[in-house]
């Protein structure tokens, strides 16, 4: 029991590692601030493209969504960071993470938006168009506000997944929270920094997950 506490819950080691871990935590937050809005916007673009009146655009979107939902995000990240240099494109670890997350997240968020948009009855479009609003105004002011509200739990749930997936960035040596904690672990030969990192993830995500449960309950009633 004592060995377990020593190995995973060593408070002194956590304190020692805290500067590097907190810096990593800051990088994780920064990464989230970049990749989540990018994914939300990219997903919206994907959803709108998937409902395009032009058949070719719809087909390209279907291929895009299928491809990036089927490729494991870690494989995609390694491919972008290790593959692009062969095409003479040098990308920083941060850029590689952003690119691969944009591709992966746009596909997932896009499907969520699309199901939201499709949940809105045709009568709403009829009413809006009959008053002279254009197709894009109808989308912006009538359909999307309702669609987003209908799929808000799914959007939040996917965002929680994205936050957790940012730990993949450690694989390409981007010094985010898990990377920093793992460095501290290898230096101290002690797993307590990992525990510390897990607690930080928990502190950020637990309130969100709680909110999500309440929202889901509320929407069922």
């Amino acid at each position, binding site marked *: 029991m004592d060995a377990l506490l020593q190995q995973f819950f060593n408070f002194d080691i956590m304190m020692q590692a805290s500067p590097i871990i907190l810096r990593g935590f800051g990088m994780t937050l920064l990464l989230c601030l970049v990749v989540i809005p990018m994914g939300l916007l990219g997903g919206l673009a994907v959803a709108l493209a998937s409902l395009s009146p032009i058949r070719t655009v719809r087909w390209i979107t279907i291929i895009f969504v299928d491809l990036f939902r089927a490729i494991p995000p870690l494989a995609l990240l390694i491919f972008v960071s290790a593959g692009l240099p062969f095409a003479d494109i040098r990308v920083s670890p941060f850029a590689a993470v952003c690119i691969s997350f944009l591709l992966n997240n746009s596909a997932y968020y896009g499907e969520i938006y699309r199901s939201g948009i499709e949940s809105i*009855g045709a009568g*709403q479009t*009829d*009413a809006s*168009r009959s*008053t*002279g*609003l*254009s197709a894009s105004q109808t989308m912006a002011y*009538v359909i999307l506000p309702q669609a987003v509200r209908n799929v808000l739990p799914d959007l939040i749930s996917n965002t929680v997944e994205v936050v957790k997936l940012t730990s993949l960035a450690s694989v390409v040596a981007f010094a985010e929270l898990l990377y920093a904690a793992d460095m501290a672990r290898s230096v101290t030969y002690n797993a307590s920094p990992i525990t510390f990192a897990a607690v930080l993830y928990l502190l950020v995500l637990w309130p969100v997950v709680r909110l999500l449960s309440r929202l889901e309950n509320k929407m069922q009633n």
Partner: protein
Amino acid sequence: MSYEKLKVLRGINIDVRPSELVFIIGPSGSGKSTLLRCCNRLEEPDSGEIIVDGEAITAKGANLNAIRRRIGMVFQSFNLYPHLTAGGNVMLALRKVLGKPKAEARAIAEAALVRVGLADKIDNYPNQLSGGQQQRAAIARALALEPKIMLFDEPTSALDPELVGDVLNVMAELKRSGMTMVVVSHEMRFAKAAADRVVFMDGGVIVEQGAPADLFANPKQKRTRDFVGQIEQ
């Protein structure tokens, strides 16, 4: 308005005069809603011509959005925007299509809601309104754009019987104010009281039309007789 050779509608030729209230009746699937929806091109006619207020709305370069705001439409299921208040529903097109400033749009919305008897409901959301109130708010939404013609697609079919009267009263007031109206509905008593002409459609064609008193009392065609007999029971 005239149409020719449609799939659901065939060989339809009908004129509506200014300030006229034309009632369209007919069994379901007879094409009466489709006819109505062609009038603002929510439904695209395959061929034929539709002229509203002197403008051929089926013309190639027709500015649909400009035309549509002069053609008000009221739907069976109201189709109010649930995320906006009654006032917000009325204001949306005023703001985004006509570009009215917020204060002016709200003043127009208030006036439109007063006209349909919903003066105190401007800040209520659709789910806080009864069916009849929702439909009247939907009428206000169309009226606020000062349309030349109003299309009603079974405006009372989704309402509880005790709420029908309020909506019909608003429509009767509109008629008295000189609005041109085309109404798809089975409210026979209203048709007899307010309609200038009743058109009976079946199978995508106009079977018979005439003044309500004539058409209901002495239908010439057997199909009309059968239908009128059924709904008057």
